[in-house]
């Protein structure tokens, strides 16, 4: 008997997938994850915000730029990009140095979690918003983040790591983001994401011998998505000058300091990963901060003075305090946490109080990826 079999993986819509022959109806499939696979449970946060405030955004002042950006995102130039082709060389996971393997998997899992969290946040905004412009933007961004997460997930599967999405049936608490903090935080996370990916991509272009996994070849188009998401948030902030002036400048400084210093500390937790890439984490950090600062001048009236003598010193102190704190936690020593926590707080204050560089913000916000 010759029966046409359909598979949900080939389906174009959810309905098709559910109707596909391989789908056993609405079941929670215990066999979903192969037993041999190591399970990593994704635990994104869930968010609420002031949806009325978000709905009140009026993009009229930036309408021309806005419509162009949304049209570009709708045309989805990277749609065909996230496919594995002949450039996806096979990876020798078995013989990868264990320390490198652990750090690289940690890198992939946290990347996947970040994309996934972005997707959850954007989808929630899309679902509860009523402002057509805003809802459209969040829908498009959720699409990109889910696509990136799927791509990383596939790389993880090759390594024998199954991402578990079972978190939905665990008790979860909804946290709260003020809309303006969503703009600052997501703007920065998208732009610094761009700077991180493109810096690695360009480095590996020059030093292909350090490209130990094919996923790095996909970083350029990937980070162009991040770049356009950042552009959208820059335009959103441009609609209301109050968001980037007065007391809010201090908030911007806080977010810049927190994001840069977290990145520094976190990257130093992956020495084998950076060594394999042939990248000095200190150089990489400064390079990424420099790019992110240059880009963020499009909307933020200040940038951090990363060449200030206290900058690198403060980062190193923060990193040391953090490593000591982690060690104390591992020992289960509550008392031992006090010292490192205080040192970390002092290092952060020292970084935060470095005078910022002020500059004039251009009238037109839009930029194109240039690195």
């Amino acid at each position, binding site marked *: 008997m010759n029966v046409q079999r359909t598979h*949900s*993986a080939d*389906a174009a819509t*959810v309905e098709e997938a559910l109707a596909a022959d*391989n*789908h056993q109806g*609405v079941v*929670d499939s*215990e066999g*979903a*994850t192969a037993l041999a696979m190591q399970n990593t449970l994704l635990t994104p*946060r*869930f968010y609420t915000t002031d949806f009325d405030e978000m709905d009140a955004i009026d993009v009229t002042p930036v309408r021309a730029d806005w419509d162009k950006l949304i049209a570009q995102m709708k045309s989805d130039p990277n749609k065909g990009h996230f496919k594995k082709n002949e450039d996806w060389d096979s990876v020798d996971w078995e013989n990868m140095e264990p320390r490198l393997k*652990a*750090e690289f998997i*940690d890198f992939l*899992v*946290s*990347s996947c*979690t970040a*994309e*996934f969290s*972005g*997707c*959850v946040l954007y989808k929630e905004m899309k679902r*509860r918003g009523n402002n057509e412009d805003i809802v459209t933007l969040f829908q498009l961004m*959720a*699409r990109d983040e*889910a*696509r990136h*997460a*799927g*791509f*990383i*997930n*596939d790389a993880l*599967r090759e390594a024998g790591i199954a991402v*578990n*999405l*079972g978190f939905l*049936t665990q*008790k*979860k*608490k*909804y946290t*709260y*983001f*003020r809309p303006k*903090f*969503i703009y600052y*935080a997501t703007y920065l*996370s998208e732009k610094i*994401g761009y700077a*991180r990916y493109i810096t690695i991509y360009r480095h590996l272009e020059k030093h292909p011998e350090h490209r130990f996994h094919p996923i790095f070849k996909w970083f350029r188009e990937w980070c162009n998505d991040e770049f356009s998401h950042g552009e959208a948030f820059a335009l959103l902030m441009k609609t209301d000058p109050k968001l980037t002036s007065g007391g809010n400048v201090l908030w911007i400084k806080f*977010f810049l300091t927190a994001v840069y210093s*977290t*990145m520094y500390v*976190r990257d130093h*937790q*992956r020495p084998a990963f950076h060594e394999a890439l042939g990248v000095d984490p200190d150089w990489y950090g400064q390079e990424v901060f420099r790019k992110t600062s240059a880009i963020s001048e499009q909307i933020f009236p200040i940038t951090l003075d990363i060449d200030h003598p206290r900058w690198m010193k403060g980062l190193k102190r923060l990193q040391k305090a953090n490593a000591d704190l982690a060690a104390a936690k591992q020992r289960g020593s509550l008392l031992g946490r006090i010292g490192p926590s205080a040192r970390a707080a002092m290092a952060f204050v020292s970084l935060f109080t470095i005078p910022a560089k002020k500059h004039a913000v251009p009238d037109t916000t839009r930029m194109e990826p240039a690195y």
Partner: protein
Amino acid sequence: MGLFTRETETAPCQVEVSHKFDSLHAHMKFLNGAVIHPGDEVLVHGAPIMAPYGEVVIEDRMATITRASKLEQLWTRMTGDFEFMELCEFSFSEEVSV
């Protein structure tokens, strides 16, 4: 909503889990228009919903919403913002330290 007391309610919801190459996502929406506020907790009933690789699974379930007390809601509003770092690819996980 009480200042200290938490109330619970149940609501029907729809869960969508996509485990496909071109989209990894998981979303939940309430079918009765229930609205979540800061600090509320949501528990979807039943076994974990696991979509096999390459598939999208949509299920209707019941969920318990535990409403935050007034105080908890206030606290979440004041402190929630500081969890933003998770959106960054270099956010902290508990596994690695130096």
